[in-house]
Every structure is written in C-alpha cells, then in structure tokens.
C-alpha cells in the first residue's frame, strides 16, 4: 500500500481504495472543538477514516501545582478543570478529603451540596443543549440554552459569590450558609425552567432535520462504551445503567427518589435524549430537596488548617459529564503528596474515533458535541 509516512497518531492500515486520502487539522482554534482541542482528521472525500485527538493545548500542570499547595488551596484548582460543573468538582475533592480527615457533613450541609450540584448539572446540560444546537447549525438553540443558564448563575452568584468558578465546598460542609432567598429563588426558577424546557425540546427534539442528522449517527455499542471507560450520559445512552449517584451513592442521594434515564441505541440522538431527561430528573431531585430542606448546622467542626491522615483516598462522584474520581495520596504535612483526578471527558473522548469513523465531517461535529467534552478537564 501507500508508503507515505502517516502523521503521528494514525495507525490504521490504509484501506484499499482508488481515492487518495488527505489530512485535515481541526483546531486548536476551531469553532466547534469546544476549546483548545486539536483533532487530526484523515478524510476520504468528506468521509472520516480516522480521527486522532491531540491534547495538551491547555495543559496547565494542575497536578504538579497541587503538590506545592495545601489541601484547601487545591479546591480552587478543581473549579478550573471542568468549569461547567465546578461545584460538582468541589464536591468530589471534598469527599476525598473528608475520608482522609474522618469527618462527616451535617444534614443541612448535604442538602446544600445536593441542591447546588443539581443546579450545576442543569447548567451544564443546558450548555450541552446550546452547543449541540449550535454545532448542528441552529444558532438560535445556542442562545436558548444560555438564556436559562443565566438564571442558575444568578442563584450561584448569590450563594457562592461567583458565577462560574464557585470554590464553595469545604471538607465538612460549605464555606457559609445559604441565604434565605435561596429556596424561593430555586422554586421559581424550576417553575420557569419546566415551562421553557417544553419549548426547547420542541425546538430540537421534534425537528425533522435534527432527527435526520442525529438518529443512527455515531453509534457506540454497549461493549465499546464499557471498554473505552465511558461514563455519564455517553455510557447510559449505550444502555448501561451506571450512575454513581445510584450505584455507588454519596451524599444523600440514597435518600432521594430519582430515576437514571437510559437509552439503548447509543447514537447521537440518544445521548441528547439522556441529557434532556437528566434535566428533568434534576428538577425532580431539587423539588424533593426543597420539600425536605432541614434546619441545623451547615457544616461540621471547622479546622484552621487541614492535614489528612497519611494514606491514599479515593472518591467518586457523578458530574454532569460522568464519573469524576479523585485519588489523593497524603503524606505528612498540610500539602497533598499527589492528587490525581479522573475526568470523565478524557475517557469519553477515547471513544470518538470509534464513533466517528465512516461518518461525514458534519457528523463528527455533532458527535463531538454529544460527548460534551471540556478540554481543561482532560488536559488538567
């Protein structure tokens, strides 16, 4: 076959064809690679033969830097990994720290955590909705998703003091209590969201072009999804019911009543449907939390500086993207010996080549947006 030297990363044997393949570089600056991702495409006409992602354009050495920061300072860096679900990352880190400290969280603190995390999940899925619509070419969907998200940011702004990088949870609870306006605001927001979700679903879910563009595209089989270590909506769309909140509960998720939406075809449309269904489940969880919201202390006893007992600690949480696992190795002192985070986007993106092979460039864009990767979380 062709004796050309393939660019780094490509490895599949050249298919026996009369046409000449060519290579196109997508990114690191490209409108639909969701940030600083670079995809090297090998194309036959418009058909994708192979996709090779290149990382590191936003590699900020967070894990190295963590070794010279103390534990509480690191929470700030977790915000900047997956900035769309910053509040859930905070939770994942704090869970691992709590194991190392041997402390728990009071009930009110747990409710605050669940509510903020679910708000964060809705916000992240709305960004997905926006980017999905936008990547399919419907600029209006992009605007719609962000519209409701602003209301969540208003709530987060009031509670945590920041719109995006919240840095709100601490081992044992949160930085401070929620304001009195929190519950009424969430209640009214949920009412508004349910109303507008009807419109939004009508805008994309029943649009004939969207259905044509997404059904049967980028199919990821159940076996492949597990083998590539996918998690979150990508895994659940392929028919695997694994949600850390249900299968390995943390916080008070075992006391709440919610379903894990799954679909079985594993195509682009299913991943979209799963995420939309998760928004509705999050609304359900938030409604229950509002009903059950207890009085009492919002955090356990404060320590001036935290030192984890030597050992290694592992925590797993379900962010909007999937399984977010933290592995902390603590030695003596107030600084972590090593912190490693397993971001869901990194593993989900591993399945990209499998999903996109044989489809067109336009489909690659929509497949990529249903993986919903956040690149700083991959590169760290």
């Amino acid at each position: 076959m062709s004796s050309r030297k393939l660019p780094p990363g490509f490895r599949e044997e050249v298919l026996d064809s009369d046409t000449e393949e060519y290579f196109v570089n997508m990114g690191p600056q490209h409108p639909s690679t969701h940030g600083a991702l670079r995809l090297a495409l090998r194309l036959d006409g418009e058909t994708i033969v192979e996709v090779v992602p290149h990382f590191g354009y936003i590699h900020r050495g967070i894990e190295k830097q963590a070794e010279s920061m103390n534990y509480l300072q690191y929470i700030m860096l977790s915000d900047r990994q997956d900035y769309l679900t910053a509040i859930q990352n905070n939770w994942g880190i704090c869970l691992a720290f709590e194991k190392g400290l041997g402390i728990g969280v009071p009930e009110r603190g747990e409710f605050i955590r669940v509510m903020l995390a679910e708000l964060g999940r809705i916000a992240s899925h709305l960004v997905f909705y926006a980017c999905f619509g936008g990547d399919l070419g419907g600029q209006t969907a992009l605007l719609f998703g962000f519209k409701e998200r602003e209301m969540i940011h208003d709530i987060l702004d009031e509670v945590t003091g920041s719109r995006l990088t919240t840095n709100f949870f601490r081992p044992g609870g949160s930085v401070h209590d929620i304001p009195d306006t929190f519950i009424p605001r969430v209640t009214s927001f949920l009412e508004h969201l349910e109303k507008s979700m009807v419109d939004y679903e009508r805008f994309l879910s029943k649009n004939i072009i969207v259905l044509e563009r997404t059904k049967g595209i980028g199919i990821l089989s159940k076996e492949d999804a597990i083998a590539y270590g996918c998690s979150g909506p990508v895994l659940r769309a392929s028919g695997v019911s694994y949600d850390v909140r249900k299968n390995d509960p943390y916080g008070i998720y075992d006391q709440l009543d919610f379903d894990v939406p799954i679909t079985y075809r594993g195509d682009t449309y299913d991943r979209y449907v799963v995420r939309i269904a998760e928004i509705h489940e999050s609304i359900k969880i938030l409604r229950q939390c509002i009903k059950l919201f207890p009085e009492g202390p919002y955090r356990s006893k404060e320590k001036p500086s935290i030192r984890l007992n030597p050992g290694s600690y592992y925590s797993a949480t379900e962010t909007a993207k999937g399984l977010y696992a933290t592995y902390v190795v603590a030695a003596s002192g107030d600084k972590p010996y090593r912190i490693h985070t397993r971001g869901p986007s990194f593993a989900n993106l591993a399945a990209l080549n499998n999903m996109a092979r044989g489809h067109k460039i336009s489909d690659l864009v929509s497949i990529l947006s249903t993986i919903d990767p956040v690149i700083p979380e991959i590169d760290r």
Partner: protein
Amino acid sequence: MMIPSVPHPLGDWVRQMIPIPELAFLANALICIIAICAVAIGSAPILIYMERKVCAHIQCRLGPMRLGYRGTLQTIADVMKLLFKEVYAPSGADKFVFYLAPMIVLVAPFLVLAMIPFDHNLQVSNLSVGIPFVIAVNGFGILAILIGGWASNNKYSLLGALRSGAQMISYEISFALVLLFVVMVSGSASLMEITLSQSGTILDWWIFKIPVLGFLAFIMFFISSIAELNRAPFDIAEAEQELTGGYHTEYNGTAFAMFYLAEYINLITISSLASTCFLGGFFPPLIGVEAVDTILLKVPGFLWFAGKVVLMIWAYMMVRWTFVRPRVDQLMALEWKFLLPFNLLLLALGAVYIAF
C-alpha cells in the same frame, strides 16, 4: 427603463435631450447601471442590519443598539471598517484567481436585477428570453465560489467550494424547473409578460391562481432558492461550525466585504424573482372590493414590489434562524430524490391544468 421599448419619463427625457439615438441609448444605459448598482449596494447594508435585528429578536436579544438610532448605522460602520482593513492573499494562493472570485460573485445578481420589472415602466431590459437568461446568469455565482475556494489554497475552502458546487448545480435544476412551470402557465418567458399575466385581484397571482399547484410550486421555489442563495439551513458551503467559513475562510478586508454584500444582493434578486413570478410583481393585492381597491391602486407599483421583496426576505431570515443545517449528503438526497421528481410531476400537472 428604456432599452428596447419600455417608455419611462426619464428615458424619454434623455432621448429628447440627446438627438442622436446611439448616444441617447448609451446615456440611458449608464443611468440604468448606476441605478441598479445604487439600489443593490445601497440596500445590502440595510438588509444586513435587518438580518441582525431579526436574528436578535428570534433569539430574545436586542441586536445592535449603540450606533445611530437603535443601531441603524452599525452595518455602515462594518462596511467602512472592512474597506479600511489590510488586504492580503495567503502565501500559496493563486493571486489572480483569488481576487477575481469576489468580483465575479457580484456580477450575477446585477445581471439578474436588470431583468426585473420594478414597475410598469421601470425595467432595464425586457428580454423575451428573460427566464432562461436569469437561470443562466444565476449559475454564474457558483463559478466565483468554486474558483475562490480553490484559489485560497486551504483545505477548508476547497471542501466548502466543492460542497457548494455540488449543491448549487443540483439545486439549479429544480430552481429552473419551477421557473419553467411559471413560464408554462403564463405562456411567456419574459418577466414583464409574466407579471402582466398576473393582473387582476390577489387571486390572479400565480401562487393562488392555480389551485394547490401554484402554492406547491412556490414552496418548491422557496426551498431551492434557499439552496441557491447558500443560506442557512442550506449553508453547507460556509458551515461555520464545520469548515470555519468554507469558501471565504481566507478572504479578508474588501474581498470579504464583496462576498458579504453579494450574499445580500443575491437575496434581493431572488426575492424579486419570487415576487415577480409568484406574488404578482408590482400589482397591488386587490381583493375585488371597490372601496379598498381604489386606495390600494393609489400606491405606486414599485412600492408594492419593494414590500413583497421585503416580505420574502423576512421569510428567508426567519427560516435561517429557525432550522438546523442538514448534512451534505442529505441535502443532495433531498434534491435528487424528492424535489426533482416532485418538480417534474408539478410540470406535468401544470400541463394538464393548461390543457383543460
């Protein structure tokens, strides 16, 4: 305005002033060219402003607000800024062809505009082969996109150009077939004749005159003209999310401004064609009630024409900001598997309609 036979006060005045017919002809031609250019280029910024406002209001935004009253001067600033930008071609580009493309892209819409009857006596040229001429000239725009994309020496541009070539050549067919339908039912290929055949009440317009068929033909025309215009949802040649800009990825400054303006001038020509062929051209929408009709008839024809064009443009804009973009092969499938057979059927049914 004057060239073969259309009388117009201005043309007549020029002919009176200049006794030599050849010179008078030239002077009149110059006036026509200037008028067409002024109308087209002058209205493009207005349309861009309109598009930004329509899009903003669909998306629950305000759109340009700061420059002039509610941002009316925004596009003027944009165009002026583009004129003052640095102009350069990418290093590997074929410079001559690279700069030729944006010039060609403006030619086609102007030639089409010359055929359009804006009013009873407001038409540059009343060709008896108007519709074939329009179809032929309109295909010229593809050439600009193809050579522009090729000359840019950029894979994205080339992909965009090839997509656009495939798309426009396919949709040209159904575009032509729908126009042929109009030619068939009206019995003339001259655009003026087509307009005159729609005189009478609103029910005499081709969209309503033939029950069901006319409306279907109009829908067919609308779909294929969106593809002809390269506008969303059929803007696969630009496809910002996929190809970062398609054929005009490498264009900047004035050259880009030409592509940018050509898109909107094309919009005017296609909308004019739609209102000429289907919406009764410059005729007012008479409803058959004497009292109302007399008032409607007082409004000059070219205003009715402009109103219909704006209505069409508004429809194009609403569609653009509502739908998502189909994939390139789906777009082809739509044309070859649906639009083309349907158009042929429409032609056959039209023939049946005429026969009885």
